[in-house]
């Protein structure tokens, strides 16, 4: 009867694998309870249970005799253990403790696992370095540019060739530490707002896009000369197409 439940592909083994265990039980108590319930079938060499996400609700019990494992699998299949029926099958791989006893233990397996861990840590370290590398360049570019030249230049341009009305505004004379979020909060309150675009290499200017030119005109007229800081009244014109 219980053979039907067991997976026939997995061959008989000294070790049984159990899942569908109650995950609320602490690991130490779980091991003690598994030891207590399975000692009736024979001597137990090892009980393995872990609380990682991958191994939660699972355990391995290693018996001295393979016949003990067979009896345990047959008799305890579906046994209500802490209110959940146990699902038992043979383990797919030989346990280390058994492999060591019969001489088939391969140390390379252990070393490989360790190397994988070390490699993973190294990758994370490289990623951190890459992240740090970006900051100096950004700060340097941001801090190096002078602010005073553009407002003057922009002012001289306005009388010469004012752009025709369109849905994108060109903002000048912004404080150096302006951020897109600041401008967005400002311009968002007018209908039709789409987005703010700033130029990294040229602090102090920005483009603000609206749905159509009427909406952008309303925003321009209302916010013309708005002072984010006392020294920097905004200068707003239509962007050149």
């Amino acid at each position, binding site marked *: 009867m219980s053979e039907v439940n067991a997976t026939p592909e997995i061959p008989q083994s000294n070790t049984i694998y159990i899942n569908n265990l109650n995950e609320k039980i602490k690991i130490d108590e779980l091991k003690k309870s598994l030891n207590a319930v399975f000692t009736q079938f024979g001597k137990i060499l090892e009980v393995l249970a872990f609380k990682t996400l991958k191994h939660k609700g699972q355990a391995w019990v290693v018996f001295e005799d393979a016949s003990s494992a067979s009896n345990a699998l047959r008799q305890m299949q*579906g046994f209500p253990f802490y209110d959940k029926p146990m699902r038992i099958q043979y383990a797919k791989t030989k346990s280390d403790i058994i492999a060591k006893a019969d001489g088939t233990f391969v140390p390379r397996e252990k070393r490989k696992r360790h190397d994988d861990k070390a490699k993973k840590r190294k990758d994370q370290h490289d990623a951190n370095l890459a992240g740090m590398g970006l900051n100096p360049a950004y700060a340097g570019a941001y801090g190096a540019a002078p602010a005073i030249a553009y407002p003057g230049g922009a002012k001289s341009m306005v009388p010469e060739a004012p752009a025709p009305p369109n849905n994108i505004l060109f903002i000048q004379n912004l404080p150096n530490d302006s951020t897109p979020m600041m401008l967005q909060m400002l311009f968002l309150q007018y209908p039709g707002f789409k987005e703010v675009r700033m130029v990294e290499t040229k602090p102090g200017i920005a483009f603000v896009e609206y749905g159509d030119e009427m909406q952008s005109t309303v925003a321009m007229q209302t916010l013309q000369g708005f002072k984010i800081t006392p020294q920097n009244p905004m200068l707003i014109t239509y962007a050149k197409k």
Partner: protein
Amino acid sequence: MVRLTADLIWKSPHFFNAIKERELDLRGNKIAVIENLGATEDQFDTIDLSDNEIVKLENVPYLNRLGTMLINNNRITRINPNIGEFLPNLHTLVLTNNRIVNLVEIDPLASLPKLHFLSLLDNNITKKPNYRLYVINKLKSLRVLDFKKVKNKERLEAKNLFSSKEVIEEIQRTPTKSETPNVSEVIEEQQMPKVVAPTPEQIIAIKAAIVNSQTLEEVARLEKALKSGQLPADLLLDNVDEKHEDMIHDDRGQADGESNDTQEQRNTDSASMEQVYGHIDMCPSKH
């Protein structure tokens, strides 16, 4: 039959077990009586006495360190009433697959001050009505019984049930209090709690069988009747049968040692038969 001697204790495996406790492995030695455990010198967290033929849990010296006793697959029917004095730190007791039958037989476990974990699986006691609540009511410190947590509402339920059922409790106590009971008296008392009593013809047949059972052949016949009979008859005959087996064993024990060996072999055969029967019985209940 093998005696549990100091030599046996010293020769048996000592090791750190799967849960990292210091364990003495006395498994599978055909030990019939617990004795001489003082030779362990209180060096073990766990003692494994599974797969033996122990009948009584007694003769335990003071073992302060002992926390776990594994007594699977024995023939435990009785427990020393003062066991708590000798095992002050015992927290785990596994009595899976033994022969504890009556609810009152677990009362001595109440004297263990730190017993948190108890297993009575595959004992006939688990088939008694209100078994779980009775054990919970008696053993206040218990946290896990038969691998299920004891919940607070179960404790309250047990308390309510047994405070208003003193009469039933008395009835359950009566059969085992008398050490040398009158046979017919025991039969009648044990019949009372059962919902369906045997018919008068069955009673007469049982009495006749008991009177006639003076030899092992008769005991074997009674066992056959056990397996083919109905459940109440099974339980009833099982109790009587065990008592008679004890009496017969005592009688032959008084005779010479050779007869004792013969008795031992027959008991072993009888035990293995019952094991097989119990094994068969286990499968459907688990499914």
